């Protein structure tokens, strides 16, 4: 039996109310969901995305070979079968963007730029903007299982599962057991009585609100109270713990999207405790290879789950979900004295999902691993085009999600050539 058949009665009712027919001609922008998979530390795109085998100025990897699947050329290596499996299985849904500039070589700054287009850290990231735009439809509009997240002014749109499983602890009540002072959690019956009382109180408070500010706040309270109560029921059909591994995060992400709890989910690889896992200032070849293999093994599992799990619309989630795989920076073209590679302000990104001009590689690196100019309308390399900025991709993602990038990104110039 599919695990969703274990759904409790209240959850079933919630889902039943939201059932819609499957999309015939692709999902509407407002129905698209997003998974951001952030790779902390700065990956080396020459291991997979950037074919620089013909360049004398770039240290490629021994045994690396040029390969292609559909319209996508990539770097293949015997130690990375998961990479090959991904492109052979999903190239028709994938888009690789090369030569993207992140304007800095500092992790913290590049992370902000890659996720928000700004160096301030006070502006919301793309995932939060997309989630907040439809926040009232979701209980956990942007669920963060790993990786960084910048909520800006949209803190209420973002929920983190917590490295120690705090969200699960909140939902189950186990967080009370962790208190230094012994606490007896209320019985389920008592909780139900109090919840029902508060639901009435919340409704009454909305009716009694005397100012528009009070109406907004009390309305949000009543709405959030209902969502919080519903969320406790979802605990019986999905695990909110998350965990450090990409596979575990992927399972939670797919559940959150499938149950209609979230519009965006952010994952991190390596997960909690992985730190700047991709930051290979030494031993670049071996460490990066292991990471790329682990990453694509996780992506393959994620894609499988997206294909086999229904969205609230009834369509497979894979038809409604865009997976954004990125890292905050790239790595220098040449190995250093410790056989590592240092920070580099050009990197790559991979997008998988609907609404994109897939089965292609756009953008490129020159002989020295510097990003080339692109035509924003076609996303093809253009001598007279601007260097591709990560903000341009962010703006395109906002556009794909139905948002106006100009409202959120200064001088927004979306890379519209990647949009179908």
């Amino acid at each position: 039996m599919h695990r969703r058949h274990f759904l409790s009665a209240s959850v079933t009712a919630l889902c039943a109310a939201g059932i819609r027919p499957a999309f015939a001609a692709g999902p509407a922008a407002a129905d698209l969901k997003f998974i951001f998979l952030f790779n902390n530390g700065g990956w080396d795109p020459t291991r997979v995305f950037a074919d620089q085998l013909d360049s004398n100025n770039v240290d490629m990897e021994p045994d690396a070979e040029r390969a292609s699947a559909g319209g996508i050329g990539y770097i293949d290596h015997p130690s990375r079968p998961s990479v090959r499996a991904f492109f052979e299985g999903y190239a028709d849904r994938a888009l690789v963007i090369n030569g993207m500039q992140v304007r800095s070589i500092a992790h913290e700054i590049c992370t902000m730029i890659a996720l928000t287009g700004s160096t301030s850290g006070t502006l919301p990231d793309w995932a939060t903007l997309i989630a907040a735009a439809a926040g009232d439809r979701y209980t956990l509009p942007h669920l963060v299982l790993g990786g960084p997240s910048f909520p800006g002014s949209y803190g209420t749109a973002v929920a983190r599962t917590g490295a120690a499983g705090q969200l699960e602890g909140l939902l189950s009540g186990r967080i009370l057991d962790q208190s230094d002072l012994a606490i007896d959690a209320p019985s389920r019956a008592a909780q139900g009585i109090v919840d029902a009382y508060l639901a009435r109180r919340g409704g009454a408070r909305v009716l009694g609100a005397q100012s528009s500010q009070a109406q907004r706040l009390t309305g949000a309270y009543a709405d959030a109270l209902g969502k919080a109560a519903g969320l406790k029921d979802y605990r019986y059909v999905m695990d909110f713990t998350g965990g450090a591994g990409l596979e575990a995060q992927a399972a939670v992400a797919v559940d959150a999207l499938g149950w209609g709890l979230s519009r965006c989910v952010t994952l991190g690889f390596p997960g909690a405790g992985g730190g700047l896992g991709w930051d290979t200032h030494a031993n670049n070849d071996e460490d990066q290879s292991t990471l790329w293999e682990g990453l694509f093994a996780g992506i393959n599992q994620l894609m499988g789950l997206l294909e086999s799990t229904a969205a609230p619309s009834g369509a497979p989630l894979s038809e409604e979900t865009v997976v954004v795989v990125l890292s905050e920076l790239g790595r220098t073209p040449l190995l250093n004295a410790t056989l590592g590679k240092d920070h580099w302000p050009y990197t790559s990104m991979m997008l998988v999902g609907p609404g994109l001009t897939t089965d292609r590689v756009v953008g490129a690196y020159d002989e020295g691993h510097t990003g080339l100019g692109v035509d924003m309308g076609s996303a093809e390399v253009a001598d007279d085009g601007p260097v591709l900025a990560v903000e341009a991709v962010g703006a395109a993602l906002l556009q794909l999600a139905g948002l106006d990038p100009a409202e959120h990104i200064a001088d927004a110039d979306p890379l519209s050539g990647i949009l179908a």
Partner: protein
Amino acid sequence: MVNLLLLLLACADEPAAPVEAPAALSASAIPTRDAAGQLIRRSLDLRGVMPTPDELAAVEADPAALDTLTEQFLADPRFEGRVRALYSEILLTQADSWSLSAQAVGVDDAVAFATSIGEEPLRIVGAVAAQDLPWTTVVTADWTMANETTAAMWPLDYPAGATGWQQARYTDGRPPAGLLSANGLWWRYRSTDSNANRKRANAISRIFLCNDYLVRPITFDRNLDLMDEAAVADAVHNNPDCVSCHVSLDPVAAYLFGFWAFDDTSPIEMRAYHPEREHLYDSFLGVGPAYYGQPGQSLADLGQQIAGDNRFPECAVQQVYGALLRRKVGLDDADALSSHREAFLAGGLTLKSLIRSVVDDPRYAAAEVDDPSAEAFGAATLKMKTIDLLESSVAGLTGFTWTTGGLPLLHNDTVGLRTLGGGVDGLTVTESATSPSATILLVQERLAQAAADFVVRSDAALPAGERRLLRRVELSATLESDSAAIAAQIVDLHREIFGATVQADGPEVTANLELWGALYAAEGDTAEAWTGLLAALLRDPDFLFY
């Protein structure tokens, strides 16, 4: 037109700066709360707890008592903590992790290590406010605040064997400049070689001048080779788009090289100030220390220059006004800001004088009424408690503080619930939530359940006269045996938890008696009924909003 404005405000996702007020309206026309309502707001904002029934009775009998009680709140030891909470969203120093571990610096208590570093700058701010010192002290003081943990890590003249936060001085010869000389600030705001202290300079600008270079719209030359140091240096000095910021940012960054660490994972590098590195600005920046064209020599000069800048008090006014109204400050607040600035200056630049002015502002004291002047002027007709305020107000009522393994559960994200509860994490979450979400209410729920369980158990072990909350009733009483006592206790609870006066036969008490009865019927235990009722009251929207 007014209806349209109301509609726009009502539809906003987040609190916005006020829309332009119609010319005919004046902020003084904003209907304000009654004295008790104002007392509740002031008590929560200035000392983090509800007013006592006696305090409420005093202002109900004589509204003029509001001013007297406000002075008491400002003199209350808890005021310092509220200032720290307010400035934690501005300084953003309360991070969970640092470039060094407790073990690396020889501190056994990892919890104290994690919390003390970021607390140092906030303790300075809190001390300046609590001691009614001029606000300029935060950038000119020749002292810092230290506890036994920071004293174990850093060169401080903290008394041997002492414990707790107290004034101390660094002993490594660093220039006296208040926060600017505090390790805690620069452990939070570190620098890379290529950044050359510019991030730190921007932190100074953002915190003290409300001028964040990083949110300025900039045009970035994408053809610039970022790996070419000479090209970058040339752009910084000659490219007009770059110069517009760097011309003022870089000279401030030049002041900060005494805090330069060649390895920010080295305890020796990070703990001390390095006077011999002050001149590294030559090689890193190519410009010397200066503050908007006014040259200087040391960090102490920078502190004095900031203290003398008109933008410095203006920024403090903007920060305090915005924090107390719980919204962003906009252009339409100019008149209010000007008025509070005058009060700030007239009060000798003490934070208390500024706060007195703001809490007297009708925008702050606004009643929850449907009134066009209140909406148009961005009045705070209703506010949501921050996670800090929720915690302290629950603790004030119940005595319960939620910790796990010694860590305050609502003050960290490592194992805690800070951001899930709407708080800031000092790194990526930079603004407290201003409206409820599902996770915020879940945090409120679990906090309420824990606190209710704690206080009922505590009270049950005490004679009625010594109890914290359940003083009116024998805990064995049921509705059948003594419904009058239970009703009287509920009346008292409404007074203490909401500051409200309700009647024993009124609808609020009737509803609560029904709730108590339902809980007793389900649990068969009077203590469980009280626990459930108290948890419900602590989760009530009227407890979350104020």
